[in-house]
């Protein structure tokens, strides 16, 4: 669902879309930069990522960054509990994650300044502060471009849909939206992937060959029209998925063993996490899951009592499941909302309002040292204790785990060079 509220001081973009002429190959200049940066390719362990977008902006003070000592007008109703890692505490309403604290890492004191949903979401989905003149691609588009497809499995999948844009990379890198979330124990399939009506693979191949011969009207114009280019790419991907039993099975969570399914609860988010683990196993490079409803201006704590359990069980299941399958080391999990929420309680509504200055993010797997807290917020959680991290830094680190140099440059169709992440630095503590 599109969001339209754009009420802060940054200009709304004008949806200028740029192409990728000249930017698709690894140029010599890029290669040199890549090599001299040195930090990257050899250390990378991940070949896939799962991005969980907590839309609405979850409060940091009532989830992963509690301040039991803070003044009453800041503190909030919830108590911290101990976790599996000594010294780390999180909200009492996240007991399962507390037990699995050794499987992920908390970033505290992440900070930015965009306090409107649309712009904040764009920021944390692309790792670049939104600009009026340019649309940055989201992580999924970059990852599927850089790591490419893996057989006939769609490289970029969103359950059920994604806020990420494809920006100057073009619509061809857009995710496959499943449109629905799986239900516990039931067969799940993306509609249209099954061969039906007595069609055989041979018949489909024959049709496809004819289509390839006839679909020539726009040939030669792919580079000047992103729609044409995108449709080309989708045509190939769709065909590959339809003719491959492997790709259809990748979506069917009912094929998982009952024991594995038991790791997950029954909520749509739990089941989406289950599907994500299965897709990654099959070769999908980037999975986006959305869990919304965190915009708790009103009645913050009662709302959180309802919002926390699905996150708690779904994410715990995902981390355990990935570990069980031996995929945690090769899969980076990244969880974030668009901002934190005002540490000072809005007493007229018993809620917390938008607050980008101080927020939390979670990362796990993909070579990250799990079971840590990195960064720190100040005593009343209004600011990072020292410099803090920007969403750009976390994005750079995400790409780092995947062996993608965040300083790599693409070119828009007007020849403007654009780095994957303009201002970020890999956070060394994540890999300590």
């Amino acid at each position, binding site marked *: 669902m599109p969001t339209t509220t754009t009420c802060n001081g940054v200009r709304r973009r004008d949806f*200028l879309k740029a192409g990728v002429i000249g930017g698709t190959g690894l140029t010599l200049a890029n290669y040199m930069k890549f090599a001299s940066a040195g930090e990257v390719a050899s250390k990378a362990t991940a070949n896939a990522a799962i991005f969980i977008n907590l839309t609405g902006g979850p409060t940091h003070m009532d989830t992963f960054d509690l301040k039991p000592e803070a003044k009453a007008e800041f503190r909030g109703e919830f108590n911290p509990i101990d976790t599996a890692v000594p010294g780390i505490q999180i909200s009492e309403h996240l007991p399962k994650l507390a037990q699995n604290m050794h499987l992920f890492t908390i970033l505290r004191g992440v900070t930015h*300044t965009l306090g409107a949903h649309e712009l904040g979401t764009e920021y944390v989905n692309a790792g670049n502060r939104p600009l009026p003149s340019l649309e940055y691609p989201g992580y999924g588009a970059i990852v599927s471009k850089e790591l490419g497809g893996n057989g006939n499995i769609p490289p970029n999948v969103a359950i059920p849909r994604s806020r990420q844009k494809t920006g100057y990379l073009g619509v061809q890198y857009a995710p496959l939206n499943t449109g629905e979330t799986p239900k516990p124990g039931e067969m799940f399939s993306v*509609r249209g992937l099954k061969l039906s009506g007595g069609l055989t693979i041979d018949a489909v191949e024959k049709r496809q060959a004819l289509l390839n011969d006839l679909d020539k*009207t726009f040939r030669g114009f792919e580079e000047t029209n992103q729609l044409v280019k995108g*449709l080309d790419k989708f045509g190939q991907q*769709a065909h590959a998925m339809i003719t491959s039993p492997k790709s259809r099975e990748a979506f069917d969570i009912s094929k998982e063993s009952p024991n594995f399914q038991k790791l997950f609860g029954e909520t749509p988010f739990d089941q989406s996490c289950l599907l994500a683990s299965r897709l990654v196993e099959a070769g999908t490079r980037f999975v986006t899951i959305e869990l919304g409803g965190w915009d708790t201006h009103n009645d913050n704590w009662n709302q959180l009592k309802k919002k926390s359990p699905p996150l708690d069980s779904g994410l715990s299941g995902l981390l355990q499941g990935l570990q069980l399958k031996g995929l945690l080391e090769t899969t980076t999990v990244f969880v974030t909302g668009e901002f934190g929420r005002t540490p000072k309680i809005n007493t007229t509504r018993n809620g917390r309002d938008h607050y980008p200055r101080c927020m939390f993010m979670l990362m796990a797997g993909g070579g990250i040292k799990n079971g840590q807290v990195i960064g720190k917020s100040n005593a009343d959680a209004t600011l990072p204790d020292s410099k803090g991290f920007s969403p750009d830094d976390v994005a750079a680190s995400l790409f780092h785990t995947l062996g993608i140099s965040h300083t790599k440059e693409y070119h828009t169709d*007007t020849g403007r060079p654009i780095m994957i992440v303009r201002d970020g630095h890999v956070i060394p503590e994540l890999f300590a």
Partner: protein
Amino acid sequence: MPRLSSVALWCLATVAPVSLANAVLADDIIAPASERFASKDASETPNFQQHIVPLFSRLGCNGRACHGSFQGQGGFRLSLFGYDFKLDHEGLTKGDKDKNKEPRILVEEPEESLTLLKATLETPHRGGKRMDADSWQYNIFRNWIKAGGKSVDEDSPKFVKLEVTPSEIQFGKDGEQTQIKAVAVWSDGTREDVTPLCRFNSNDDLIAAIDSNGLVKSGQTGDTHIVVNYDAGVVPVPVIRPVSDKTGKKYPKVETPTKVDELVVQKLRKLGIVPSDVCDDHDFLRRASLDITGTLPAPQEIVDFVSNQDSDKRAKKIDELLERPGYVAWWTTKLCDFTGNNASFLNNVGGNLGGRDTATQQWYDWISKRVAANEPYDKLVEGIVVATSRKPDEGYTAYCERMCAIYGPKKEGSYAEAGGLTYYWGRQNFRQPEERVIGFAYTFLGLRIQCAQCHKHPFDQWTQDDFNQFKGFFQGINFGVNPRDRSEQQAIMAKLEIDTKKTNGGQLRGELANRAKKGDIVPVDELYTVKPQAAQNNRNKDKDNGKQNARQPAGPKAKLLGGEVVSLMEHDDVRAPLMQWLRDPSNRFFARAFVNRVWATYFNVGIVNPADDMSLANAPSNAALLDYLSQGFIAHNFDMKWLHREITNSQTYQRSWKPNDTNRLDQKNFSHAIPRRLPAEIALDALKQATSSDTEIARLQTDLKGRAIAIAGTNGRAGNSNGSISFALTVFGRSTRETNCDCDRSAEASLLQTVYLQNDGQVLDLLNDKNGWVNSLAPHKAVRNEREEKRSDKSIADAKAARKNFEKSLEGNERELKKARKADNQEEVKEVEARIAELKAKIKKVQAGIEAKPEETPKPAPVVVSLEPEDLVKAAYLRSLSRLPSDSEMETSKKFLTQSEDRLSGARDLLWALINTKEFIVNH
């Protein structure tokens, strides 16, 4: 965060500094504050609105991250982006007793004011250093404090306008620069150079970068705007750098037969962009049919049109298309998008007795009736804006009788016939005055005003005050029973004899709806307005978080957006002056918003883009063009068809999609057609048409039954049997009509769309449909459609099973009859005989059904269709791509057909391939 740049740079760009207060230049323009306050001896007293508040913006003090935050920052709060003078002034002058904090300014000792100490970093300031001591900015603040720190009062001059020069910038090469100058005009006649107090932005800093002092630098080729902000003034300045050397005299001769072409080419000439040629007849017919009627041209129509030698044939075709039902359906759908016709907000909407799907259908029908009659746009809108439920002079009981007749057994009359589109006002997301302001501005003004609900709009002139004063027009518009009709309502209720004590609200509503269906007269809710009241009752304001209840009557006055304060007391219906303002020729938004949306539908981008964001900072790419069309639309009495004709008859609309070297990158100046994905409803209708038999295609041209563009609601279910189509509509991005945004409709392509086209059961069924094209080719040898066959097999099997049961039962009864006769029980005999007769009749009926089954499937009338490969290929191309195949396409397709197992499966594969080409799914 804006950073204060070197003051010196600014001074260099100006004339020698003048330290005299009120120094007046030759043309009566007061010199910029940066000069007047450059010396610390400057004695002039600056003003709060003119100087202090703009400086807060310039220095970044009132941004969201700083003191503009709703919680304030460090105990000091300013209104976000300024313009709430009271709040800002109090923030500076009033301390916080609770926190034992002193005021931020000290009149006795200005230099010791916290504001100045913080901003110069004399004392720690989390926002860092904002200015130097003794800088002109500092001197302004100091002098203002020294003079008592006065706010704005009743007598303060009002802001009139911001004059910016140059009004247009044309760059030629790298490194060129132009300084912007901005003069503010005030109601007392004062004209002040406010350049150093403005904020500057570029809409595309690749083409034109602007620094904080208003110096514009040339960048890449293309065109954009730089935007100057000061007070309520938001002035965009176009910047152009030609993309080729084909400008001015070097520009080739381009025909401009219409005014639209003239204005478009005028801009293109400046840009050095040469438009593409006019497209061929095939492209024109396909494009115009899809755009105007949401329908593919019929094969025969294409052949006839192309061979027609009439030089005026395109204009005639446009006229013809505008008379087709497809035009009505498609533009009704678009108007339903803009007005927000969504069943999920219409639960129990007042005046409706038929459920939300009925309401959504009635909404659609209401608009459809008016589009069909080509009612002037302002009149159509009047029916929405001042909608009431009653006809003029209609009594309450008469109203109830009329409404009940619509839902009663005879279904007399309709919602669309009398009264206005009251549902617009009754939606669940359109109840609070705030929601109404936002929704109304979106629908009729093309404005996104929501920002101003809480603070000054950052890209437009609107302040929170504008928003709140406009709200007055949206109160006192109620649904229910007008208290003055209470006795009539009770009388009607009494006749129904319903025990209301035993029913809750929902049950009662259901019961009343049922009774109306049976033909009873029941009380019906209506939209009625309450006369404004001089003294407003604000007692409950705090209780509901400041939201004023829409039921509360309006106050004595309200202010039009960017217009006059209107006294409401003389109006029974406060919406009347609102409507009067909308249709007034001087209204800057109403006609333009619609014109721009219509244009955007034809060109993929609006003249202002996005089409529903007509804020001042989001300037039109071609202002003259938008002005011409808007004024023409008004001058032609808001004739919607005039607008469609004016646009589609232009060469600009009829250009080829094939770009040339100069216009390849142009996306917003209309130099060539831009291929765009078909909108959801049109895509699905096109699929249906392309796969239908010739007779069905002919029907679809004039009959909307089964068409996606005729679906009223957003869920693809209301009033249409095609329930299952909702999945496809969602995949292709039909408008959700949820969020007051044209972006509720998606024009993006996606992988799932392609999967649908290639392999969804629905598409494959269309290709195999028994009434489809492929089967129509061989009436005697229908291509197998397994689903259909299975279904009919099953019904025969069911019938046979039923016959068996009846037969068994018959045997039993016959045995009983024998027994009864033996026993000579006449009564029993009679009874059993009756049962036997009944069973025999049943068996006969079932048997007839089984035998008749094969005949039940209607065999398509035997049409003589050529199965020659060449003819099949032509037919397949015409029905899908609306053109004949090229020689090589013919060759490839013929070869494929002759190599196929049989002609029909070959034809089906060919059609599958054609509907999966990019050419099919885009309008080009």
